[in-house]
């Protein structure tokens, strides 16, 4: 009876919604909390329910199926509700907490970096902390739906300050398929996992998604395009930028392999190194600012462990070293694009 598994065409955010719904059905200890994860809290008596569904609409409809006991709208108090999620995870629940934008982690960073990340280790392994933090990140002015983007405090990437903390797992899905699979894997993981959801991919990344629950393993990168001349290593939306660049490079006669990093911590060094061992060149493409970034971390690891395979210096293509500017013309200069990736590859292939 291995008929073709039923699939549906879903957006990235719809796929995450599907993951949450399936896991909440499967496991009554899974709860969802955050600002406006439903919306119109307490207004059911006026016929107003589920007004919002989160900034990317990833939690829409959950309150209708699971009720306000398990789908909790919170006040604007990130430190308080992330802390409550930590306490709930210590005492038998599997909370999935949403921080509307990663730019807001400053409001709850202690609960993430001092509490959630370290609990299991610091307490000698005596308790699990099955906590999921979902958060939206990234620039979006390039959509040109507004004159500019969301500027310096609503467009950041910031995953390096999460991946830096031992004990946190950080995943960056890129497609509807892996968004669902990584979300389910994160919910089932016994420790804290941060899911970085790019604002643009939320609605734009569409694809076939199996109806049933499945996991995409945390801690594994994926080769998403085979090539022989150079490895392009992409994170989040930058994987799509790498694929676009690879297509253009192919027309110029350069065969680029694309590795989708998918998990920043723990990083799958083996897959990246294996690719570099075949292509002998590496360009890492990261939407984050360069200092102390994942791009430079990956470059350093490959330099350390794969130096003998390299025929050229490692290149990084990152955001500019400045806050995210508002005007579309400036934001387009800020974030990496396919043309900059091609230019970096040309420098390596001479």
């Amino acid at each position, binding site marked *: 009876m291995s008929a073709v598994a039923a699939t549906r065409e879903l957006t990235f955010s719809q796929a995450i919604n599907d993951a949450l719904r399936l896991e909440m059905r499967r496991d009554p200890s899974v*709860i969802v909390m955050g600002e406006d994860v439903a919306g119109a809290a307490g207004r059911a008596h006026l016929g107003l329910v589920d007004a919002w569904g989160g900034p990317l609409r990833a939690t829409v409809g959950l309150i209708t199926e699971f009720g306000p006991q398990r789908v909790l709208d919170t006040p604007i108090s990130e430190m308080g509700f992330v*802390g409550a999620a*930590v*306490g*709930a995870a210590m*005492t038998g*629940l599997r909370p999935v907490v949403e921080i509307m934008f990663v730019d807001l982690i400053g409001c709850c960073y202690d609960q993430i970096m001092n509490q959630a990340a370290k609990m299991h280790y*610091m307490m000698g392994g005596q308790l699990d902390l*099955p906590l999921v933090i979902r958060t939206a990140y990234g620039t979006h002015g390039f959509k040109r739906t507004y004159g500019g983007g969301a500027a310096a405090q609503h467009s950041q990437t910031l995953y390096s300050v999460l991946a830096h903390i031992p004990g946190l797992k950080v995943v960056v899905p890129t497609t509807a398929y892996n968004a669902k699979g990584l979300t389910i894997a994160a919910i089932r*993981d016994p420790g804290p996992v941060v899911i970085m959801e790019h604002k643009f991919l939320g609605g734009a990344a569409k694809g076939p998604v199996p109806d049933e629950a499945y996991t995409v393993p945390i801690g594994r990168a994926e080769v998403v395009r085979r090539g022989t001349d150079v490895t392009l290593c992409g994170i989040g939306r930058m994987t799509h930028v790498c694929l676009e660049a690879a297509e253009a490079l192919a027309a110029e006669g350069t065969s680029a392999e694309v590795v989708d990093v998918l998990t920043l911590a723990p990083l799958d060094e083996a897959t990246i190194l294996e690719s570099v061992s075949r292509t002998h060149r590496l360009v890492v493409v990261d939407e984050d600012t360069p200092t102390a970034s994942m791009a430079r971390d990956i470059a350093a690891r490959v330099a350390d462990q794969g130096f003998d395979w390299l025929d050229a210096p490692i290149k990084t293509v990152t955001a500019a070293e400045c806050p995210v500017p508002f005007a579309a013309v400036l934001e387009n200069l800020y974030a990496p694009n396919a043309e900059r990736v091609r230019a970096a590859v040309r420098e390596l292939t001479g």
Partner: protein
Amino acid sequence: MIPRPMAPQLPPTPDRELLLWMYERMGLVREFEERLRTLVERGVPVGPVHFYTGQEAVAVGVCAALRSTDWIASTHRGHGHCIAKGVDVRPMMAELYGKATGTNRGKGGSMHITDTRVGMLGVNPIVGMGTPHAVGAALSARVRGTDEVAVAFFGEGAASMGVVHEAMNLASIWTLPVIFVCENNGYAQATPVEYAVAADRIADRAAAYRMPGVTVDGQDVLAVWEATEAAVRRARAGGGPSLIECLTYRYYGHHQGDNALRYRLAEEERAARERDCLRCYRAVLLAQGFEAAALDAGDTRNRERLDAAIAFAEASPVPGPEELLADVYAEEVHG
């Protein structure tokens, strides 16, 4: 919404067994730390410790009103909370020694002692940060369909932390069974409460979160027990959170090695010690007809417990090098 009144207060009557338990447990906290001070003086490397001495009536009075299945979230000054909630002093001491047999297998030290089996969610040295954990434990209790309650201990210094206010607001809007216990010992490190807190009573702040708030004499274990017992009863019945401010005093500096006389007067310390919670409570029990021998027997048992705890800690092995990288991540559960 009209604030819910406190449940009608019946005169609390702790039974004989509980009265004795409180005496012996307060003595155990005191004994633990007196031994610890001698270890520090001997140069045993027990790491940074924050002595709870002087405040024993608070931890014990609160925990005497709890069940073993209830939860507490502690502060940086957590030895008293641990012992009152039932953490075994042998692994506690071993933890301070950095031994593999410690509560946290030598990876936490004094500032992170945790034993979830007895509902102790952790000593927490980031001031105020344990309070939302108690809110989460209470939320968890409700989602899991139990009548467990959770206590958030915090100091009067933490009362100025935003997270404590966020935690109180969350507990109130969700009507969660949380008891916020503020241990007002007068000093946040070297900063006096009257300078740092814009309130006459920290308990006054309860009104801002639509919960009852009371201030009690934190040197009187029975007063602490009585207030907690009422708040716990209310919480278990679905009445939501409460705030109890306990006025108390720490006898020593902020941590070992801190000379408190740089920021407070010797007369004040002397006056506080005259109201020593253990001595006062012993006098109350004797006046109630308890025999001195019964109380002394508890003191003796506590000394024996600490003899055993120190022997256990000293004989225990240090963690192996494999422990360095163990438990960074929890064990993966597939499927």
